[in-house]
Every structure is written in C-alpha cells, then in structure tokens.
C-alpha cells in the first residue's frame, strides 16, 4: 500500500469571468 500523502494546499483561483475582468483592466492600464 502507498504511504498516505500529506494533504495538498488548495490554490485559490478566480473564476473565468473574474480573470476576464482582470485582463481587461490590465489592458486598459497599459497604453
């Protein structure tokens, strides 16, 4: 049997829509 692995840390992610908003505001900031 495999040794029990330690719990992995959940990496929080924005939703696809939130990511869209972030990239739009990034584009607006850059000239």
């Amino acid at each position, binding site marked *: 049997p495999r040794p029990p*692995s330690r719990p*992995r840390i*959940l*990496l929080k992610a924005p939703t*696809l829509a939130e990511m869209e908003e972030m*990239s739009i505001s990034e584009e607006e900031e850059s000239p």
Partner: protein
Amino acid sequence: RQVTLQRKEKDFEGMLEYVKEDEARLIKTLITDIRPGSVSATVPCLPAYILFMCIRHADYVNDDQKVVSLLTSTINAIKKVLKRNNDDFEMMSFWLANTSRLLHCLKQYSGEEAFMTQNTAKQNEHCLKNFDLAEYRQILSDLSIQIYQQLIKVAEGIIQPMIVSAMLESESIPSLAGVKPMGYRNRSSSMDTDADGPTSYTLQGLIRQLAQFNGTMRDHGMDPEIAGQVVRQLFHLINAVTLNNLLLRKDVCSWSTGMQLRYNTSQLEEWLRANNLFQSKAAATLEPIIQAAQLLQVKKKTSQDAEAICSLCTALTVQQIVKILNLYTPLNEFEERVTVSFIRNIQSNLQERNDPPQLLMDTKHTFPVLFPYTPSALSLEGMHIPASLGLDFLIRV
C-alpha cells in the same frame, strides 16, 4: 556519450524546469505563436503535456506563486489566441484538444483516488505533491466549454450555406436527374457542373467538409467523445435546416425528393459508420428528415396508409406531417394529390399526441456538452520535445 544519454533518460522524472523570467517566453512560444502544423508530427496535445510538466516542477519545488502565475498566463494566452482567430476552425480545434488535455492531466495527476484508477505505478508517482488545483480545473473546464461553443459556431457558419443545396437540390442519384414535379425547373443544374470543386454544394461537398472537420479534430488528438458531440451538433443543424426548408417549399415536397433525401441521409449515416461516429448519437438527430423522406414516398390513399404513416412518423409533429402532406406535389398526371379526407384521417389519428405547436425546428438548439474524463496512457518521463519548438530554455528534470 550514448551511456550518458541513456542514463539521463532513465533519471528523468517527467518535469520541466524554467526560471521565472522565462515564463513569458514559454507562453509566447508554446501558446501565442504556435501553429498547429508545427507539432503535427509529435505526440498529440504536446503543448498541454509540456505545460503540465512545467506545473509539476513548480509544484515539486513548492512554489505556489509560480504555479498560479503559469496557469493564469496559460489561460489568458489561450483566450487571446482564440479571440484573434475567432473564425479559424483549426485553431479552435487545436486549443480545445489541448485545453481539455491539460484539464485531464490536472485530474489524472491530482492524487485524488477517483482519477487514479487507470494510472500506472509510475504515473501515480508523478502526482502533484503540494498543491490542490481543483479550482483551476473548474476554470479549464469553463474555458473548454467556451472554446467548444466557438468551434461549433465556426463550423455551423461553414456548413449552413451548403445544407439546402446538398440535401434537397443536388442530384446525387444520377437516375433521378430531371425527375421533378410538374412546373418546377431543375434548380440544381448549375450546382452539378462543379461537383468536384472545393465550394460545390453537393452532398459529396458537404460530406467532404464534415470529413475535413473530423480529420482536423482527430489530428489534434481531440477526445473522440468531444469530436462526436461536435458532429452530433452539426448533424442537428443539417436535419433542422433541411426539414424547415422542406416544410416551406412546395417544389421539394415530392416523391423524387423523398427518394433523394433518403439516399442522402443514408450516405450521412454511412459516413458516421465509416468514421466510428455511429455511437455519437449523431445518427438519431437525422430521424425527422429520414421520416419526412419516407412520408414523401409512401402511399397516401387508404385508411391503412394513414395508420402506417401515424406509426412511422414518430419524430415529426402532427403539424409537420400535415404540412408535408398538404404541400405534397404529384410528379405527373398519373399521381394524385393527397386528399383532404386523408389528411383529416391522419389528424384524428394523432389528436392525442401532445406535440409542441411550432411548425419549424429550432436550428439553434444546442445539446449540453460533456467532457468525460479521459486519462492518458502516455508516460511523462518519455516525452520528447522537438528542438524545432525553440524551448531549449526548459530543463528536463
């Protein structure tokens, strides 16, 4: 030298390391600038595997910032490529295949028991050690759905103008050429002259286009289940556009068009069989036009004929059956029109059916898309990255 190489291969753990400063270069080379043809001779979905091997290394060194940054840049770059190529079926297909493969990799190597049942021992050793990327799996799943919908839109735009001509007007049965109802000109004569041309709207042209879509998706390593869903959605459009036209045009409601339509649908079914797509439920979407073709061909005189029609036409609504019978045009003076009493007979036979009131089919109806989990048998440690990709800044670990 050979001994050294062999040893390196053996020690390779299926990870790829890069310095943080090279992330933009990696994304540009592997996503923004890549052409599907440049990786056609390699493992299908190579970009997805390379990206996952980079994620694995960032996970291995416990660098959460690097994992998040790479995944975010990857998702944004894919979206940008698709925006820039929003009418390019090949690009849509390539990125749908790669995005869904990356999603499968995140599941297959997540360390969650449910996704590990088909893994080899080595694949289980390669599972992520530190991070749970379940939330990124959700984003990749949403992105895959977005790409799928865009791909359907592009494919529909290409085949929509071909459907009426290919299914109802062009004459794929040579012996039927010229057999049209009285008073109607042979509309397809000009189309037949360029039957072998790339833009001809014959049945062969339509099937060629479907084959091209299917071949592209297969070449890109798209999961057969997803390709099957694309074909099913396109077959729905073929069915709906054909039936709607039949319901609005008297000149095609004839015995000979019925014969032609039956032949054409059988050719489409044959194409599904030849391409192992018969399980995709695409064939079932053709049922209304198959029944309409039969309705045009069967006898429409006695009450037994009416009963036969009622038990035959289960995929057509009462309104559609009645409309086709009303529009039915005899081929010549020896064939009779469908009588009013015959149509009344049909209506009374079918009055208990609770059919929707609308006559025309919804051409825009979309089947819900599913991306079933498809683990890969491929071993990451054996992955070869061609030098031509220009990724020599990635270090195999």
